[in-house]
């Protein structure tokens, strides 16, 4: 259970025409909780995820994980040492590797070895309905299967935090419910602190404990608590393919 603190973070992007993407953003996520981020395109959601992951350096403020500063004016822990899983909007799959190769590659740098590694791989393949597709490459998978692979790959190493950038975009209703269910279960089991970016309130409600709106790089108002999230098979299931407003 990792506690995430984002304290007065500011970030500008661009080389010649610099644009302030985030301004004085302060947020806290309790360990094992999921924070939903919503906002218009260009409001800074993805940049915030990239700062948490350590893929970008911040200009001002501080990011702490478990009380330890990982990003700040004088500190930047490299992305590879933060133990963070990231599902990118573009998925970022490796076209030359099979499903098995994807999981092997990220597990290579993890502490899992031998049987434990095999067991973890099998669990993920099963949870994300990728069994039987181990030898296929991304080009041989359907759009939905590619999303599943990207999520499974993010969860494969020994991570303490999961960052999801519109991970369900392009999935149909039934498949989305299945993925949300599997993701919710794994999150609960591993007590993964999660930040989810989405435009879809159904997805945000299904996984998040709190919801935050970003507008032009600012947090609007206070985080709104959501009812305890439950997946489609967790009792109070969301409507299949439903889009609650």
């Amino acid at each position: 259970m990792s506690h995430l603190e984002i304290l007065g973070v500011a970030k500008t992007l661009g080389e010649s025409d610099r644009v302030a993407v985030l301004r004085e953003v302060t947020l806290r996520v309790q360990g094992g909780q999921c924070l939903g981020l919503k906002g218009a395109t260009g409001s800074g959601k993805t940049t915030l995820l990239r700062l948490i992951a350590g893929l970008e350096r911040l200009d001002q403020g501080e990011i702490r994980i478990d009380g330890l500063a990982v990003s700040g004016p004088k500190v930047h822990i490299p992305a590879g040492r933060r133990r963070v899983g990231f599902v990118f909007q573009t998925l970022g799959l490796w076209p030359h590797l099979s499903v098995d190769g994807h999981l092997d590659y990220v597990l290579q740098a993890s502490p899992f070895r031998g049987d434990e590694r095999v067991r973890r791989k099998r669990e993920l393949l099963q949870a994300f309905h990728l069994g039987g597709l181990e030898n296929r490459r991304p080009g041989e998978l359907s759009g939905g299967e590619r999303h599943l692979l990207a999520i499974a790959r993010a969860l494969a190493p020994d991570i303490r935090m999961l960052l999801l950038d519109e991970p369900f975009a392009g999935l149909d209703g039934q498949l989305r419910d299945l993925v949300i269910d599997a993701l919710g279960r794994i999150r609960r089991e591993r007590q993964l602190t999660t930040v989810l970016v989405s435009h879809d309130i159904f997805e945000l409600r299904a996984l998040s404990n709190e919801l935050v709106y970003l507008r032009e790089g600012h947090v609007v108002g206070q985080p709104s608590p959501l009812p305890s999230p439950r997946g489609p098979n967790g009792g109070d299931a969301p409507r299949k393919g439903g889009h609650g407003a």
Partner: protein
Amino acid sequence: MRRPSTRVGIVHAVLAATMLVPLALSFSGGGSFADVYLTTDPGAATSRRMLLFEALARSSWIGLGACAVALAFGIPAAWLLSRRKRTLFFLALCALPLALAPSVAVSGWLEWWSVAMRGLGGARPELTSAFRQMPAGGMTGMGPLFSIPGVALVLGLGLWPIVAFELWPAFIRARGDAYESALLAGSPAKAFFRVALPMARGELAAGALLVFLLAASDFTVSSLLLVRTLPIEVHDYLSLGKAGSAAWAALPLVLLIGTAAALLSRVHARDAQASEHTGGAREAQVTSGSRWGAAILALGLGMGFVFPLAGCVVGVMDSAVSWSHAFKAGLEPLGVSLRLSIAAAIVAMLLAAARIVLWPNMRARTLNVAGLLVLVVPGTFLASGLLNLGTGLAMHASGPFEWVAQAMPAGMLMAFGYVLRFVYIPMRLAEEGLRTLDPATLETAELAGQSGLMQGLGVALPQLWGHLLAAEMLVFVLALGDLPVSDTLAPPGAVPVSVWLFQQQHLGYTEAVFGLSLLVGAAAAAGLLGSGLLGTALRKLGTRRWDAWAGGGA
């Protein structure tokens, strides 16, 4: 792609400076600035400066003319390339005109001109005496080929693939939603000229500028077609043993080139930034409306490769001697050049791989600018600097380092010269390849704790096999046809094929010249197409092994 970190930036700057050392050293040879631009006789100095200025003007006109020809063929070819599935073999096919050595192209065109003048089987006009005295303004009364437009045409027909290869990725990006929206609102031609072409204007400018620079610094074609350009003035100083004077004479062209190279680098940097925001390209499909592109591509291939080579075939067939005699002469120089070109191509491929593996998520603008400068300055200028460097090293190698000078195989300096002259190609292709990768693929590996080196080896390199092979192919064919470096740096007793051919061409166009031209053209084509086929096969084989490698034996 990210800007390099301070530490990597320093490494790039040191490497770039090392690449430019030979250019600086070329000023240290015999002769000085005063020899070229100032003398005690003011009249002579003025006329010498005027001579250089006129030569520079001729070089610039040739550059502009070649640019126009290259754009005429390169733009439609790029459009076609962006609209159909590209295999390495198809790309190699499109690069054939670039693979044809300039001296071979001249042989072919001259034979056609000769046939047009006399008819098949007639006696060849005597060119030998004419070549021995080169007039300043080109030959008059010897046909339109012996003129600035003639040189520009021959060069433009060989260099148009550069425009096509520069433009094609931009057309792929432009061919997305923006172009399709324009198609809904007007004709394909209007959509092309109003949307696709303006969206690719950066790459268009880059391609045109690169062709201009290469054509303006050409020595071979202008020398064979008797147009006195600045690279010929530079070569003449070098022939007199005045390497320093040669460097000072080349200075105006170098300054022009340096400015253009900096401009080109800015264009590339801007395009790189723009393309990062346009997202991935769509998978190409063969669509309607590409007939014009296909026709012009076929014409470009015909005029840039098939036609000149066919001229050499006619030259051999039209001679009275046996074919074996025609093909036998110059075989030894061909062997020398093949060995050295293959060595240079392999080193170029390794350099591209090193660039990808060492800095997979960083730009290397400093290296690219230095590489570009080395590519487009007159080759003799670079070669004389390398010669100074080699001579200096040999003279000062003593004590524990003496064995280094002794162990250096003959021709190593020449192979190094090829690598340095064409180093821009692997650097540029590697960077282009890295630009096409989705940054998320590298970032995911970074998040999983993989080092930069492992990201390069495990993620970037396997996806960029095609770029490595393209670098290898292009350096091979360009080294095979290179004249300035070969002429200056050939080891004692070994004559590279381009030098042999060039010398024979100045003595007259005999069946031996056509026979060897044909062999050189065929070797370049076989190398290019063979590498294309081999690359496709290797890529298929290679991808089966990446999984096992990625698992680390798990």
